[in-house]
């Protein structure tokens, strides 16, 4: 047979079209009839197989398969994805959601709220291709960031109950009180609002949230999973957000934002079970440090946030906030931030 005269791997290269043109032409010229027939057979079988429809899993088979694997591996049922509408209705308030598994590390977690003070016009956002420009413009104080350590569980028994922890978190309690206050504030400043309807909606929302903090906490705890910090960006309620920031700042210990050298970033990120650090490392560039990093919800989508490229004053809350979302660590936004007024 021809394949005894021309090595099979060369014939295969011809079939696969992986040879350079000149080499393919030379080889083809050297083929005898048997070899040509062999190539035709190979091509025909490839075509035939390529036309075969693939078997599909039925919905029931898929369900059974996942249930069986899940049971064997003791993987908990994934909570439903938070809906966009739900996210929009929710307060910007950072919700720390420790679980039993994550309770030990919650102490080190940082709850962050991002407030786009001044409205959308003043927000600096850039694509990754604009990273360099964004990094150099981070000093523009158009976005405020405040940070507070997550509440540490005081009692080990509490730590075993994520819902109880979420409910008892001082940040949440203070925020809930503030939310009620925000509702009154909304009433008082209604004349200044662009729309009375919008104000009423705010008040209603604040009231509803004040009435349902436990349900909210339970729902969030179930929806977000262990150890997550919720990031929310609200552009249409600056006054409410500003009040909340003031509350948060009382709790903030910004100095705990320890810079992480890029050389240690991978190790620290892995320890913190973060996976999007590579993009942040690139953005850190010449600064050589990541100021802060944490998992969370980025505008309602699970992801991670990194504070990179500190400003010249090395204020720990100043820099470029890079937000990434799972599953592919897609960079969704860069925002220049500062904790300075």
């Amino acid at each position, binding site marked *: 047979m021809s*394949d005894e005269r021309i090595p*099979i*791997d060369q*014939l*295969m*290269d011809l*079939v*696969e079209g992986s040879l350079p043109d000149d080499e393919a032409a030379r080889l083809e010229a050297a083929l005898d009839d048997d070899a040509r*027939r*062999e190539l*035709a*057979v*190979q091509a*025909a*079988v*490839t*075509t*035939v*197989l*390529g*036309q*075969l*429809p*693939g*078997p*599909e*899993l039925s919905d029931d*088979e*898929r369900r*059974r*398969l*996942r249930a*069986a*694997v*899940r049971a*064997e*591996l003791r*993987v*908990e*049922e*994934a*909570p439903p*994805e938070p809906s966009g509408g739900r996210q929009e209705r929710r307060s910007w308030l950072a919700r720390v959601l420790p679980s039993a*598994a994550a309770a030990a590390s919650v102490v080190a977690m940082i709850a962050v709220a991002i407030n786009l003070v001044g409205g959308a016009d003043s927000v600096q956002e850039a694509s990754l291709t604009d990273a360099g420009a964004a990094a150099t413009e981070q000093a523009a104080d158009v976005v405020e960031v405040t940070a507070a350590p997550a509440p540490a569980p005081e009692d080990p028994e509490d730590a075993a109950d994520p819902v109880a922890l979420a409910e008892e978190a001082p940040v949440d309690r203070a925020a809930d009180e503030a939310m009620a206050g925000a509702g009154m504030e909304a009433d008082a400043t209604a004349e200044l609002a662009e729309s009375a309807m919008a104000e009423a909606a705010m008040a209603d929302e604040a009231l509803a949230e004040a009435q349902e903090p436990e349900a909210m906490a339970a729902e969030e705890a179930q929806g977000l*999973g*262990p150890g997550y910090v919720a990031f929310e960006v609200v552009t249409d309620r600056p006054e409410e957000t500003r009040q909340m920031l003031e509350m948060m700042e009382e709790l903030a210990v910004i100095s705990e934002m320890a810079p992480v050298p890029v050389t240690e970033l991978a190790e620290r990120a892995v320890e913190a*079970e973060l*996976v*999007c650090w590579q993009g942040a490392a690139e953005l850190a560039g010449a600064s050589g440090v990541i100021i802060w990093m944490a998992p969370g919800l980025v505008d309602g989508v*699970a992801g991670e946030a990194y504070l990179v490229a500190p400003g010249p004053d090395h204020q720990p809350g100043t820099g470029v906030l890079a937000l990434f979302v*799972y*599953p*592919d*660590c897609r960079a969704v936004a860069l925002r220049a931030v500062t904790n300075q007024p």
Partner: protein
Amino acid sequence: MSRTDRSAPRDDFVLVQRYLAGDGRAFDQLMAAHEGRVFAVCLRILRDREEALDATQETFITVLRKAGSFEGRSAFSTWLYRVAVNTCYTMLRKKGRRPTTPLPGAHDPPDLSATDRIRAAELRPILEEALAKLPEEFGPAVLLSDLEGLPLRRVAEILEVPLGTVKSRVFRGRKLLAEHLGNLMAPSGYPKEDKHE
């Protein structure tokens, strides 16, 4: 075949890390990304849906149990395929079902016009059967290359053999299939009466 459920290696690495961190959604995403193709491979080897489901289940359990050792140096799907193929052939051996006889040894020329008629329902089962009967040496190579559409280099990675060996296996596997199909095809392109029995 679920040719749409491919995911990039980087995605898989991220998902595996999240799965290891206890993220139930990552588990679902990993399953969704790969279950269809793993099942397709298993079904084509085993020719029985329930057994293929068992093999797919076993594959994911095996791989996810060892996910902590996955460092992302190779594609997660490479690992999955490797385990899937091994699992299926182990099942076949345990059941003693692996055909030890070669495919029908006739040497009629293949009817190339069959490529136009392959959609005919009559031919599909024959082709699937012929695929399943390919010796273990050739079957996975042809399956991964020509049905899953994987580059030969990845097939070599999955089967843990040199690239040249994969080329040879795919080449010879296709030849066996062609001989089998050519023998079964009447000039009209429809299956002949099985003259081998």
